[in-house]
């Protein structure tokens, strides 16, 4: 019975000695506690370095450290990133635009007069319809030119309409009147024709306005309507088809009739009406608002529970190099518990 305390004491003695050695030997344990004087020296060194660093920051006007607004959580998006994003989205969009127009229609009609029996008479009326059943073209953007000013990013870039083709019919109708009508009767032909879309370059110019929307900043597009004026350029084959069709009509008719129809410069009329072009307005929805890539969240999630941070947006601050936005927190975050 009396031996047990002795053994226990001996064990404690050994353990205590080992513990003492462990704590005293440098490298074996936590480092030696510094003296108060050593701490003071470290604080002095830290403060000196901090002052020097602060002076350097001021001297170099380091980024926007000084211009960042007050707020608990901020996001600063450099103009370089905003510009790169806007540029990439706009050029990407415009490189993907495919135009597919159907059932375009252009029309011309007129009376044809001829000298019949020593008198100018209306010998007939022609009606010419160009029906484009299908027109396809693609857009290719050129290099954008961007300008950042205040809260807007201006962008201007050329867009080339290329690789366009159209197919359709030229519907020619002749309604002979008087003598010509009696002799020629009516004519109604619709040869199929095709055409390439004349390559053209359009200048797209607009702005993206930066504004705070909820917890992020959005670049809102502000573009005037973009109107494309597509012109057709029928090749020799198409003109030949038209000419041959009308030639057949002419060959079928008598002299008076041939004279009347020959007075109609069908090719010229077709050229004239298709040269007015086909206007295509790019929808405003083509350019959508671009959210800048960082948003301040007003809540956080812990273990499946959403905790509101009671945050209030502080709006936008635009400096020459950075767009700042962020939030301020309210009084108390829900979910914070007092010690029990």
């Amino acid at each position: 019975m009396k031996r047990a305390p002795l053994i226990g004491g001996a064990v404690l003695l050994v353990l205590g000695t080992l513990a003492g050695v462990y704590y005293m030997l440098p490298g074996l344990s936590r480092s030696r506690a510094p003296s108060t004087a050593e701490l003071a020296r470290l604080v002095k060194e830290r403060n000196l370095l901090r002052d020097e660093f602060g002076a350097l920051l001021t001297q170099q006007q380091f980024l926007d450290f000084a211009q960042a607004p007050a707020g608990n959580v901020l996001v600063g998006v450099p103009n370089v990133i905003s510009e790169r994003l806007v540029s990439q989205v706009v050029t990407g969009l415009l490189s993907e635009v495919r135009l597919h127009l159907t059932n375009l229609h252009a029309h011309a009609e007129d009376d044809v007069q001829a000298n019949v029996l020593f008198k100018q008479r209306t010998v007939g009326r022609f009606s010419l319809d160009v029906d484009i059943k299908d027109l396809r073209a693609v857009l290719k953007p050129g290099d954008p030119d961007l300008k950042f000013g205040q809260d807007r990013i201006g962008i201007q870039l050329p867009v080339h309409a290329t690789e366009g083709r159209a197919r359709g019919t030229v519907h020619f109708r002749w309604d002979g009147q008087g003598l010509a009508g009696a002799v020629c009767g009516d004519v109604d032909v619709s040869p199929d024709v095709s055409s390439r879309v004349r390559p053209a370059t359009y200048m797209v110019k607009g702005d993206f306005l930066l504004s705070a929307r909820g917890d992020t900043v959005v670049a809102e597009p502000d573009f005037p309507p973009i109107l494309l004026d597509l012109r057709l350029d029928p090749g020799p084959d198409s003109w030949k088809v038209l000419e041959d069709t009308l030639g057949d009509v002419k060959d079928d008719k008598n002299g008076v009739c041939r004279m009347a129809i020959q007075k109609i410069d069908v090719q010229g009329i077709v050229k004239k009406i298709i040269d007015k072009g086909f206007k295509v307005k790019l929808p405003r929805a083509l350019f959508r608002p671009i959210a800048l890539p960082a948003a301040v969240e007003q809540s956080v999630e812990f273990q499946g529970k959403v905790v509101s941070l009671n945050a209030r947006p502080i709006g936008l601050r635009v400096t020459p190099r950075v767009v700042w936005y962020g939030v301020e927190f309210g009084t108390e975050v829900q979910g914070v518990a007092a010690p029990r």
Partner: protein
Amino acid sequence: MHRARCFPRVSRRAALAVTAVGLLAMLGGCGEDLAAGRRRVEARVLARQIENLREMKTALSAKRLVSEQWLAIVADEAAVRSVIEAGLPQEMTVGRFRVLVHRAEVSFSSGSNRVRLNARVTDTRSPDRVADVVYQGGLDDIVVSGGKLTTRVLIDDIDVPQVQTGGDDASLLTMAADQLAGQNLERLQALIPPVAIPVKVEERIAVPGLGDGPVEVDPAEVPLNVKVARVIPLSGRLWVFLDVSVGAWRKTSALPSPSPSPVKKP
């Protein structure tokens, strides 16, 4: 039969003397005084600050501290404290002790971040024995994952500033709490929820398509590669700089949205 004795018979007084010496040796080895512990923690923090300041000063002089092209996320001490505290209180039982982490303090200064987590340790066998424990540490590396900026609090030391007991010896509970924390830092570490800075970073810009009209655009996206480039705790704020590289436009398979008819007759 008589059993042989392994040890000579000793007196009760001698046994008690050896036990007392052993206990003293134990306390002398393990029970480093609190002031020394605090000085050691303070020295470690100062050393970290000095090292960070030197590095930042050198980088700033060489104009490579921060690139003008980096996106900045700034969270002040109150914000980080709020998000840590939003996940509190957290409680766990370690042996006979109940640990309740209930409050956080955060400081960002001179290139160094510090997090202090206040906890209350209660002896479950004697609930009136309570010690307030402060876990000291800092934020780990910040990473961008799934559009979130996350980190965690790394505890590297503890402090036991206050003990309340029901008249018992305070130093024993202090030592117990100290040992409890020391031996269970990893378990206690897991008690602290990850810290999510309340900022959502997009990893792509989605561009919806247009269809059903004369102007067709396939849906696409611009991928963004975001990585943390530098973290600077400074003047009460944590500055997290992100290197955002804008990728090439690429098509996606989402359905396009309808567009209005824009065609005019000539």
